[in-house]
């Protein structure tokens, strides 16, 4: 019994394969992910970083209502997508736009929610990416249900479900992990512990030795990993995905990272954290260390780096262009998707809106006719 429990407890320190300077750690002697995987990961991170910057710029330009940036968390964002196959599912939170982009969702559609056109901009079935979920942790039981349904049909699908350190405090986190464990659902719960829930620091969120220690209470193996080390993330997450796929049930992975920017553009992080804390984490940037390693290994040179930057630039351009297009939302949409068929009540209510619009148009027409007269 307790040997079982031992197996479920995380390692003493978060797994790190590349140190902040990009040097392989002792743990890396057991092997690092293949170079092409790491290069693919770096490419993803360059895109993610650029995408974060672009989206923040679009907020300043008034093109997005709000943007919760994952700047600094790009290793987690990219690894979450990279360890999955096409048939797998990703369940992102509201902050995980870059992960959705990494999984191939159109960046403009990913930002739909934050642009204000509609609540979700992309088709979840296209890339098997659930809608970005705002109510924290509420998507986790959905992830378990998707995984269980697949398993009932004998499919090999794995679901990777993301949440933040703050999200782990919600009852839904607990219920989801417990359901997954009891039904041995193939779900990898990936907690991005970025040290803050808006202004609330981790210490006010949990007194646990680590968030990965929550696994054993459900009978789920828990592991923590340096969340700014893409190599370690790929290693630990793909191990977890592999075990889930092999029928070993759910897994819990905590990525220790840092929210480098304010919660959203609307937030003022100086109210609750010190600059030197931010600076210390800046020195652990996920892109810097992987780039350093790949250059040392000779896998990356300036030309290749320029290619990555150019590819990221294209994503940024596509994002910018897409968001700069003004789409006039159709008021009929308000009533179109509430049910498969509108209720008689909605039919009446739509008529009210249409009537208002046509009267408005009429009076505008009349006005312009008068003006041209």
């Amino acid at each position: 019994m307790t040997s079982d429990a031992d197996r479920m407890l995380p390692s003493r320190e978060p797994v790190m394969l590349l140190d902040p300077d990009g040097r392989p750690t002792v743990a890396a002697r057991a092997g690092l992910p293949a170079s092409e995987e790491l290069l693919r990961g770096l490419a993803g991170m360059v895109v993610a970083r650029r995408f974060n910057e672009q989206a923040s710029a679009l907020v300043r330009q008034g093109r997005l209502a709000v943007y919760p940036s994952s700047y600094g968390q790009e290793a987690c964002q990219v690894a979450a997508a990279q360890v999955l196959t096409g048939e797998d599912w990703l369940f992102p939170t509201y902050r995980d736009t870059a992960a959705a982009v990494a999984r191939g969702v159109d960046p403009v559609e990913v930002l739909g929610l934050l642009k204000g056109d509609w609540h979700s901009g992309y088709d979840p079935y296209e890339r098997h990416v659930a809608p970005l979920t705002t109510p924290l942790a509420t998507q986790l039981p959905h992830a378990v249900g998707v995984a269980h349904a697949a398993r009932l049909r004998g499919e090999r699908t794995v679901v990777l479900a993301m949440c933040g350190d703050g999200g782990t405090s919600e009852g839904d986190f607990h219920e989801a992990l417990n359901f997954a464990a009891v039904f041995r659902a193939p779900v990898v719960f990936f907690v991005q512990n970025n040290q803050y829930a808006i202004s609330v620091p981790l210490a006010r969120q949990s007194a646990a030795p680590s968030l990965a220690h929550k696994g054993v209470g459900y009978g789920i193996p828990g592991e923590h990993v340096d969340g700014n080390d893409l190599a370690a993330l790929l290693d630990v997450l793909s191990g977890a995905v592999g075990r889930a796929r092999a029928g070993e049930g759910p897994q819990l992975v905590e990525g220790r990272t840092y929210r480098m920017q304010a919660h959203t553009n609307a937030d003022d992080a100086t109210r609750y954290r010190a600059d030197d804390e931010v600076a210390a984490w800046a020195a652990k940037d996920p892109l810097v260390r992987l780039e350093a390693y790949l250059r040392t290994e000779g896998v990356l040179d300036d030309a290749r780096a320029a290619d990555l930057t150019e590819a990221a630039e294209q994503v940024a351009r596509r994002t910018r262009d897409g968001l700069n297009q003004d789409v006039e939302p159709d008021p009929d949409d308000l009533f179109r998707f509430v049910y498969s068929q509108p209720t008689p009540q909605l039919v009446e209510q739509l008529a009210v809106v249409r009537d208002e619009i046509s009267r408005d148009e009429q009076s505008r027409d009349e006005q312009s006719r008068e003006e041209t007269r």
Partner: protein
Amino acid sequence: MTTTAVEHATLSTAQAINRALHDAMAEDPTVLVLGEDVGPLGGVFRVTDGLTAEFGEDRCFDTPLAEAGIAGFAVGLAMNGMRPVIEMQFDAFAYPAFEQVVSHIAKMRNRTRGRVALPLVVRIPYAGGIGGVEHHCDSSESYYAHTPGLHVVAPSNPADAYTLLREAIASPDPVIFLEPKKLYWAKGEVVLGRGGEPGIGTAVVRRQGTDATLIAYGPTVPVAIEAAEVAARDGRSLQVVDLRSIVPFDDAGVCAAVESTGRAVVVAEAAGFASVSSEIAARVSERCFHSLSAPVRRVTGFDIPYPPPKLEHFQLPSVDRILDAVDELQWEEA
């Protein structure tokens, strides 16, 4: 034109629901039944009796004791090709799932522009009259009816329980299916199979009458019918309308009924304030204003927590209280 042999059976409401689950599961392998104690025990009201034995552990199963988890898990199942039917053990034990119901079950289709449908049913044994203790007798329909994106259905007899549940399970929209506990043991004739009419969204006149209309749903329908029978002995002819579905609401059916009598009393067990009964009264008052000879009266639960067993009879709309309301419909002026 095809002729179908129509199968009938005399069943209690609980049996009719059991049969509906059974028949839906037999027809469609994606229908799953899950919840607390719905497996080997067959549910605390035996509504799911025999389903695990017949369809296996994968099709009808117990979950951990966590209502938000059950509802959220069902969202995932429905997102991925299944038609889950979940049971909340009692009305008040559905509240922990409120967030999942309101923010996801009700909104998923709308959020995704119709791409993600959630064909799922939330079965809730509800309302009082069975001497249940605290938390076992809430009439919670107003919370759901106020939430756009949900269909809310409440049968008042075994036949409707079967027909409406079959339709609910087949529906591409999420349905809150409210089962009046005190009617679980009431027997009636049930037409089996699909295609039983009328469907969700249609109110039905249960009793013809010319003097005033009683509008009821779920557990108050039999009480309204009884009141009409008593009134008939006193020479007053009361019509009884059974809503059957609260959302969608049958405006046409209800208005036609009320306009035919010119007077209306709404009868519901739930606390009256800001409730489904308020909505009915408001709609009827607005839409039938010029046909009304008297204000619409409401006979509802009082605005108090559901009482303990020894006091519950005061809370339940009774025949006498309905007849009192009818008496107040300003007959002198007529």
